[in-house]
């Protein structure tokens, strides 16, 4: 069975989780993505991607404790699963294979 490929936002979210290490929640993930890509990503897209990744078994989540700073609302902590990490590696390899030997051509075409 061919593995389902990752959408852009899903890819970003997985990499952000990898970078943030261990467990992380919505705000740092959003900030990490916008800091790295240099653009605002739709908040809804990130939450939806997280939910879908969880459905696919690529991330797992748990609810934290409610805090006063958040109006008594808890955080949901996400972490990468092994399958998620493997998928990420596979996705990166695919990109690298596609990019092999053409970086120069791309730069030239863009000029």
């Amino acid at each position: 069975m061919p593995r389902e490929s990752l959408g852009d936002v899903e890819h970003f979210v997985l990499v952000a989780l990898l970078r943030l290490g261990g467990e992380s929640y919505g705000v740092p993930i959003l900030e990490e993505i916008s800091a790295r890509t240099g653009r605002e990503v739709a908040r809804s897209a990130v939450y939806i991607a997280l939910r879908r990744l969880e459905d696919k078994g690529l991330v797992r989540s748990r609810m934290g404790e409610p805090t006063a700073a958040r109006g008594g609302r808890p955080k949901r902590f996400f972490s990468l699963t092994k399958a998620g990490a493997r998928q990420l590696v596979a996705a990166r390899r695919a990109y690298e294979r596609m990019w092999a030997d053409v970086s120069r051509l791309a730069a030239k075409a863009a000029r």
Partner: protein
Amino acid sequence: MTGRPRLSAWLLERWLPPEDRDEIVGDLDEQFAERLHRDGARRARRWYRAQARDLVWRYRQRPVLHPAPEGRTAMLLDDLRHASRQFRSRPAAPLLVAAMLAAAIGLCTGTFAVVDSLLLERAPFHEVERLRAVAVRRIFGQDNPELDRLIGAWRTAGIFEAVEAAGAAPPETPTTGVGGSAALVTPGLFDMLGVRPIRGRGFTDEDTRAGDTEPVVISERLWREAFGADPATLGSVVTLGGRECRLIGVMPADFRFPDRDTVIWRPLSLDARPFPFAVGRPAYARLPRGIPESEVMARAAAIAGAADPRFTARPNELAFSPIGGIVDANAARALPLFGGGVALIFLALCANASGILLSRMTVRRRELGLRLSLGASRWRLLRESTIEHAIVAAAGIAAGIGIARAVTSVAPRLMSDGFDLAQSLNPIDVDPRALALAASLGAFAVLIAGVLPAWVGTRVNPADAIRPSDRTHTESRPARAIARTLLVAQVAFAAMLVLGAALLVRSFGRMATADRGMDPRDVHTINAFMSSVAPAVLDDVDARLRAIPGIEAAAVAGGAPPEGNNDFSGTWRTDLVSGIEVESELYDIRSDYFGFFGLTLLRGRHVQPGDGRDVAIVSERVAAMLWPDADPLGKVMTMEDGPFSARVIGVARDIALPSLLDGVDLPEIYIPHTGRRKVLSASWKCRARCPDRSEIVTAIRTADARAEVVGRVSSAEERYAAHLVRPRVAAELGATFAAAGFLTSGAGLFAALTYAVGRRRREFGIRTALGATPAVLRRSVTREALAVAAAGVAIGAVGGWTLQRGLSSVTYGVSGLDPTAWLAMMLVVTLTMLAASWRPSRQAARANPVELLRDE
């Protein structure tokens, strides 16, 4: 959290799914607090509003974005919610589709129920396959023996398991006052049919010897309506139609025998004198097991011959027929055709419903593409579409059941004249199997046509579908092909229906305007059995009739046209031919007969007083059969298998009785009324004031005290009209079906063209800009309509070819290839298609390039 925009906060609470809400709003609030501190209230609030807008907008598409609900029930509920949203936003198409499906299922199932009750199903009696109506043919020229002698002989010989008599009680019998008729039955009849009374008991031999108060058994329906189903009435003396009788039993409400409307049964003894039923009325018998029917029949005929020598004169005089079901061949031929018409309507309606659903394909494709791009799975979208259309189909089926019920309750009233519905002994109920079949076919059509757009639509690249300006403004090739095929199919079905209707209408016209060979105006007739038909008696009856005020002219004879009701069949020999079978109508006439009925004598002379039984006048058809290409005048005709021989003194023009029934429009043989048969047909002409039956009965009885006047007064016009009822009903039904057919296909084409023109507005705009004139654009749309019409007519003509061959057995004087009917079909279909394309073609011609460019 203080300071955040209230409306946005409320919207988030309202629209985010509860399981995600805390996490998302918590994250948002956390960042808002930070921004409030960093950027100030105004910018932070603006930021918050933008974030909330994004979240609410996306989460409003909840069925897509929300993770699939867990559990089947939750999933189903979710899909149902989605379907209901779809209906509310665009109710027209689903409603129309459900209505068409309902019409298709209702009409089809209702009609099947009627056909089933009449044709397919046998009477609801025990081992009905062994029950037979045993009819003995009437014998020409003699008093017919009474049925009791035959039944007695058969019983003694024991050739049947049981044999009983049953028949409608004489009309003088008072009956019910609530509708329904009374019947006389021999005591063993109920047991033979295997039907038991639900209350009380059936008849015993004792009951036929009852004293003053006759015992009766009544139907449950009558028991409820007349006596409120009061158990106290059982066994007691009650009054039925002004006559006292003892109620001994109640039969089930759906027991119908010997007639569909029988509600009272009276006991009949085989010893009754006079016995009410003569030969010609059937006896009812149960065949013994294990003996072939032909053998039983042969033995029954032999025994009949032994019982009464008059039966040995002719062989094969017994007819065994199954009980219940359809009675005549014409109805048996017409009903399947009628069913075929309904099937065509069913197919046309289903094709139309499918067409409507498919025409939404492009709209839906865009919507589906959008949702795919937002992450909905293909499986999910297909499931939703299936559920949505399953609901449409379910609504259509539910309404269809209602229509079917309505059809079965209205049909007996509408068609009783035309299709002898009264003859069926079965209740007319919606058949669950037929309903299941029609419903599943209809639902299948709707589901296929409904889910196909989702199937095709979810295969497209979502990115294409959500492009703000979709440049491909015409349909995809397969979509267009499917839509066009459905349209052509509709037109073909409609063309077949129009052709069928045109043939039926032409047939009816031919029958109604056919030359009758007689003048039926103002002629009334009643029949009587006489004790004497001596010339003096006939003269007396004639004079007494003329003396009745209002009567302008009178004629007494044996038999009155157009139906003499005296079938005179035999094998003839003349000087030219021998062994010629002629089925004819025999009239015993007097000298005034031809003048009174406006008949035409072509050659020879009229009957004169003093003519004996050795002369006859024959009609043209008889003459042509017995004396091909020769003059029959003065020649002798002899019946080879009967006691009849006569010299021809005249040739008369045929009397025509246009009818769809076989053996009705027979050629005529006229003989002088010499008293060979003691029958009398008294006919008179009256206009403004016509006498009552009682006045006529008095006149006849005064002349012959022992005369028995039978039946009611009938007019010749009425008897002609009776034969027009079926063709009229058939023509009306055919025209209704055809109208429904071409309205459906016309509406289908109109919708399809309007939609296509709407989609091609851009193309038309560009063509206008490139110099196409409005006329050119109009023509291009009209051409499309005509192409559909041509294809439809071509396919319809092939179907029509088969159809007209079936119809030839139920039409009169019209060839299946009648050019008028075929031309009418082509014209109607083409004109309908042109009319349907008129508005869309004008729309196309009005395309304005400037407006289209502005759209860009």
